[in-house]
Structures are given as C-alpha cells and as structure tokens.
C-alpha cells in the first residue's frame, strides 16, 4: 500500500507546487510596471527602445519616413497619445506638431519627458543675439544629432522612467550605461580619424543647420549654413555671404 501511494503523493505535491509557482509568476507579471512610451521623433524611439528593452512598449508617434517639420497629426495619433503613459519630446521646437496634440488630449496621467531639459543648447546659426540685453535666444532644435548629447538625453530619460517604474530603474540604468559605451566608442573612432586630418584650414558649410551639436563635440566649427531656415531657399545675398565665409580667410 505504501509503495503504491508514495508516487501518487509526490505527484500531487509536484502538481500543487507547479500551480503555486505559475500563479506567483502570473501575479508578478501582473504587478510588473509596463509603460506605454511614445516618441515624437525617431531617435527618441531608438533611445527609449535601447533603455527599456522588452520591459515596456515603445511606439513612434509619427510613421517611419515622415518629416516631423511638416507632419500633420491624424485622428488615430490622438487616440494613440491618449493611451500612453509617457511621451518623449524635443522641447525646442523640432516636433511642433506635438504641442497642440498635448493640449487637446484628455490624459491626466501622461508624463511628458522634455529631452532638452538640462541640455546645453546652441543658438541657431547666423543669428546675432545681444546676451548683455538678455535677448530671447532661439535655439537649434537638432539636439539629437550628437553623441555626448545623446548619452545625456538618454540618461535623463532613464532617470525619469526609473521614477515611474522604480523596480526596473536598475535595468534601465544598466542598459543606458551599456549603450553609452557603444556611443562613446563611435565618438572616439571619429575623433581618431579627425586627428589624422589637417583641420587648420578646414571650413565647413552645411545645407541645413542640423549638425552644430555633433560638430561641436568633434571640435569642428561650422563656417556657414546654406538654408536660412528648414526648407527655405537662400537669397542671392545669403548665398554670397555663404561663399564669402567658405572661401575667405579663417
């Protein structure tokens, strides 16, 4: 009798243990913080994805290939925004489309992460501000085209997300540190290549004022920007000025 019962009892105990364990796992999954994160620009999507991994849902508010300067929000975008816990925005005007959307939605829980907060900003090219008189300065919004800047912004995003999900804060920090190493290696590689060049007489003109942050990190000065504003053709006088800046003495 003993010999017959013993395996049955063990089997029952095992089954009970399995049930308890699986229900505990399911409970832990339910309790786990899982954020819905939206990104107003594609780089923010990439950063957020690298920070959270599979621990949160990350979506891009604008579709792939869309130009954020000219983007017109669709009704479905509003619906998506209302279901988000967090939205990551530029904060210096590169994603102007998001402002009216944020005003219009009814989502009190939505946390807006402004990636430009605490970031050293560069004034727009070729505008002369009187700092003594505390002129209102217009800043270059291409803060995401940078490496050190990207690391700083990612750290800030990770910090904010960590506050919302404290249990996962450690993972977010670990992921940012790992990704930062990759980015710094890219920076070092670029700097090493620049070291081999003679930059003394180098003058750079960019079509669009989008690379100031990156060039600053590389120690390169932008001499001229062809487009006065995004998508605006330069006048004859502006072109003449650009040519002078490129061809004249440094």
């Amino acid at each position, binding site marked *: 009798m003993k010999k017959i019962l013993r395996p049955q009892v063990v089997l029952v105990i095992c089954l009970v243990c399995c049930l308890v364990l699986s229900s505990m796992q399911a409970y832990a999954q339910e309790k786990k913080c899982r954020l819905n994160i939206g990104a107003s620009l594609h780089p923010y999507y990439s950063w957020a994805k690298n920070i959270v991994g599979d621990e949160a849902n990350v979506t891009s508010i604008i579709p792939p290939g869309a130009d954020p300067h000219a983007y017109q929000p669709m009704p479905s975008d509003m619906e998506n925004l209302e279901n988000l816990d967090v939205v990551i925005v530029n904060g210096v005007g590169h994603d102007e489309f998001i402002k009216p959307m944020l005003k219009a939605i009814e989502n009190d829980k939505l946390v807006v992460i402004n990636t430009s907060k605490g970031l050293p900003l560069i004034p727009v090219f070729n505008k002369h501000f009187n700092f003594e008189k505390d002129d209102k*300065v217009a800043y270059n919004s291409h803060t995401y085209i940078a490496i050190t800047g990207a690391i700083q912004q990612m750290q800030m995003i990770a910090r904010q997300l960590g506050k919302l999900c404290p249990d996962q804060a450690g993972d977010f920090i670990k992921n940012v540190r790992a990704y930062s190493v990759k980015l710094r290696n890219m920076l070092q590689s670029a700097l090493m290549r620049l070291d081999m060049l003679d930059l003394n007489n180098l003058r750079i003109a960019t079509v669009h004022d989008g690379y100031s942050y990156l060039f600053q*990190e590389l120690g*390169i000065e932008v001499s001229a920007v062809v487009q006065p504003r995004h998508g605006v053709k330069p006048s004859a006088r502006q072109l003449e000025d650009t040519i002078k800046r490129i061809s004249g003495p440094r």
Partner: protein
Amino acid sequence: MNNADIQECKEVIVAPLAAGREVLGLAVVICCIFLLAGLRYAQVAPTEDVAAKKSYQIQDIRLKNQAPVLYRSLLGAVDSITWTYEAAGNWPEISELQTESLPPFVGDFLPAGLRGFSWEMHQGETWVDYYGSNKEIVQEEKQGTDPLENSFILRIIDLRAGQYPYPYIQDAQEDRFTAQIWINPQIVDYSVGPLVERGWKWVVSGSSAVNGKVTESSGS
C-alpha cells in the same frame, strides 16, 4: 467747352455725410488690432525670469572656444558618477572613472586641445568636486593645437545627506543630487572655500526651463 466755361468751373470738395462715423469706426478697428496684438504677446511672451541670474553665474551659450565641449562632457558624466555613488556609497575616484572610460576624465573622447586636462577629486561629507585644468598647454601649443586655458570644477551635492556648500539649486522635483559646473577663465589651482570669491563662475543653462530657484544660504 470753350475757355470761358473752364474759368467758370469751381472745384468743390464735399465731405461724405458718414465721414465722421467712418473715421471713428477705423479708429476702433485699429485699437482692436493693437489690443489683440497685445493680448497675443502677453500670451506667448517668454516667462524667463532674467533677474534670477546671479552675478556669479554665466550662461552656457556665452562660453568661448572649446569650453562648451568640456562643459557638455562634464554634464554627461554626472549620472554615471551619481549612479556609482548610489551603488557603492562613496564618490568614485578619478582612476575609477578612467577605468570606466568616462569622458572628460579620459581625454581620448575629447577633441584635440582638451586632452591635456588632468583631474583631481576633492570631497566633503556630502559633496564632491572634480577639478580639472590643462597642465600641458605649452606642449599642446607647440603641437599646433589650440588648448583651452580654463579651469573647471564639477561639483555634485547629495542633497539628502546633510550640510552642503552654497549656492545650490532648489529643484522643484526634489532630486537627490544636484550638479554644478564652475569655470575659471584662467588656469588656477584648486582651493577650498567659496568659489564665488575666487573668480569662479557657475555655468548655467541659457534655457529657462532648466534652472530652479537659487538658494544662497547653506542647506541641510
């Protein structure tokens, strides 16, 4: 029509009956336009409190030469330092930061002209100063680079740990740490005591959203 008829003609200007009302209406419309423009300006005008900037502060957009690069790099190091402090319970040494390949403590991640900076750590009970200055200026100038002739201090304060040096930013979000970057226009040695009295300037962001309320008394 002969010459006699022309001489008899007389130019008569008759004001329209409603001219007064038209002028009044136009004046009202102009006033309304000005009023609307004023209201719109008040709505979109910057709320930046310019007066909040102290005499010992300098806006980051006014940094010259390669100083913005070093400033940016120091800001980027803050989180790594505080995360290490939180995990280990003490401020990381320079050698630790170099092992971690953290710029600007490792010059390889900086453009030429900033690689000669050497760094020292000075700490109090609740704060740490990472002081750096370029000791290799002469050598770098010989190599044809344009070295930066400034000194920097990255000061990180643990606001929850007790007494801390002044001034500091009272952040509305009540973060545990606050970081300050100080610049001296010359290469000077590190000295203990208030930096303000020794010609150091606290670099603050040019954008208003960043700066909280500055408190000038020491805090705890």
